[in-house]
């Protein structure tokens, strides 16, 4: 199962190495990783997507990460309601006579054209990783020349889903 883990760290040299080294030591395969500054000076936040099936293994990695001196906070936010975004740049073969067709295809994804050439066009698309996957699948038949993804970044929503009974007039 894919898990989303966020790690708040003190922004020091080697800290990324420390965190990924721990994941490597315990044979985790990192699907994606993003790092950047936070609202607090000197603090960075990492977002990992990892594939793990064993509950105990994920508990262990969270605890091991927590033990690191430079790590302030670790959250497994998989079960929470989160906002998650990733950005992808995709260069697609696009002869002039195809362009309008392609534009109508990508429109529902709100992808934007950020560069064009004689026979190619570069789209920028943002969204959660599933949306990016769907976009790539859709655009693939046209011929992808180059593709790059940032990896997902995420945090939990202000309001969490609450397990409440829905009121219904039908009941």
């Amino acid at each position, binding site marked *: 199962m894919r898990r989303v883990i966020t790690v708040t*760290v*003190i922004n020091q*040299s*080697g800290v990324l*190495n*420390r965190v990924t*080294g*721990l994941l490597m*030591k315990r044979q985790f395969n990192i699907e994606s990783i993003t790092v950047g500054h936070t609202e607090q000076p000197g603090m960075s936040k990492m977002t990992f997507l990892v594939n793990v099936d064993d509950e*105990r293994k994920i*508990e*262990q990695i969270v*605890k*091991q990460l*927590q*033990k*690191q*001196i*430079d*790590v*302030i906070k670790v959250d497994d936010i998989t079960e929470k309601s989160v906002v998650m975004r990733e950005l992808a740049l995709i260069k697609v073969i696009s002869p002039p006579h195809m362009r309008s067709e392609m534009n109508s295809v990508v429109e529902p994804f709100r992808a934007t054209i950020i560069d064009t050439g004689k026979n190619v066009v570069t789209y920028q698309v943002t969204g959660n990783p599933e949306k990016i996957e769907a976009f790539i699948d859709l655009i693939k038949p046209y011929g992808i020349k180059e593709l790059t993804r940032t990896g997902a970044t995420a945090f939990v929503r202000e309001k969490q889903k609450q397990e409440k009974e829905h009121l219904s007039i039908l009941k």
Partner: protein
Amino acid sequence: MNTGGRTVNVLKEKSKHEEQTRQLNDGSAVLIQALKDQGVETVFGYPGGAVLPIYDALYKNPITHILARHEQGAIHAAEGYARVSGKPGVVIATSGPGATNLVTGITDAMMDSLPLVIFTGQVAQGVIGTDAFQEADIIGITQPITKHNYQVTDINDLPRIIKEAFHIASTGRRGPVLVDIPKNIATDLFEPTEENAADTAIDLPGYQPTTQPNFLQIQKAVHSLKEAKKPLILGGAGILHAQAMDEFKTFVEKHRVPVVNTLLGLGGIHGEHELFFGMAGMHGTCSANTAISECDLLINIGARFDDRLTGNLQRFAQNAKIVHIDIDPAEIGKNVPTEIPIVADAKEALKELIKHQEESPDTEEWVAYLKQLAYDYPLWYKEDEKELLPQQAVQHIHRITKGDAIVTTDVGQHQMWAAQYYQLNNPDHWVTSGGLGTMGFGFPAAIGAQLARPDARVISIVGDAGFQMTAQELSLLQEFRIPVKVVILNNGSLGMVRQWQQTFYEERYSESLVPVQPDFVKLAEAYDLKAYRIDSNDEAEEIFREALLSDEPVLIDCRVKQLENVYPMVAPGKGLDEMIGVKA
């Protein structure tokens, strides 16, 4: 030209003065002074290019420095020192090979939670990353094997980093911390300001170890104990690290709960205590392993359920409810599902446990059962008419030293025999390489232990193979007349490897029988040390008595039976209830 001459002289004087202040306040001087401020009395090390400034500062502001003959010897000695004294062992080594020679010792300390603070030299910052002479990325190398590591990149950070290093190494779950000091930092001028002062408070938001137990969990544990019919305590090294021996004894006796130890936990309770049933695990006693298999409540205090202790996890303590007290939350639930987790320092947890006035469980029947088991199935060996058995050798040592000596070992057969047959009277008298299982650990560790406890009798029980991995440290015994007693249980083989080959590889002794050996007696004599050789059980008592009771360093080459095996044994993949080699 007189005036000119005077100017030159004044300038000379001035620069001499500047030179002096510079040296007084460079990074190296700050380091040595900081070590003194931390109360460091002994450092173990080896000089080299990148640490020349540090050794120069040490020359001017001396701390006892033990010049090992190999960096690995230095760090194992520091580990022995740390294990016996409870204080961090301090190591200094140069960049590159000096630093990489420490790697085994650092990993060993990490596995066995020993507090070490290690200072390595590094090439100057200007050339880091250029594959300079004796450059190694020791920060990258030691990242997974240290509790934390630092490279000093600004002289102003130095006092803070040293302080944090000692704090991290010696609090929470102890461990090794490495500080890498580029050569230019060691010579940079340090100008004290308010920000970089050594007395600023430690601020580590990411490091707040929990030491106080959760009240509700303690309540649950006490309640479970009251309900239990067959409770058992597994005592680990956490009890020793927390100095919780008194509380432990009180708790055990208050509720009359039987106790078994892990290898590293030995000494947490008196070796001949009536409620103590010995070491559990792969070579544990029959009663200890049976107790684990049959108990209905297992209270683990400061042990980490290592695989050599648990055997097959599916068969481990199947009927028991598990209570696990550990200072490291990551250890709880790692290997064994735990009903009652208690994250705390062992001493604090035991204090709270004792406080509760719940009534004790009735354990008399259970204790009597275990005592009967211990009586019926004791540790045993078949005496040999001609040859001295290694078990007998350890028993002689125990008898002569009355169980009061500090014992250090490597890893392997001799380690298991020492653990089985040397019942320790005292805590912190057992120094062994448990988690990493490092050959060559025991002898230098004994040197460190003796330096920490000059008054104690320190005996290093080692195998002939392991001893040769760090035998060069005999120089230290010669130089400082450190009265360590080296007992080589010499079976001319890599005993444990050979035992496994005998048991699991149809006696194909691949590279485990050593064809050639030095004359260990002559070797010791070359270092101006008194040495003995024991060939039979008949002469053993007398020679041991003379050698072990001497005030001098001695080496004893005990020729023991080659094909002797350690029993009982739990084969890999088997459960603790599937021991082989129990006395019939």
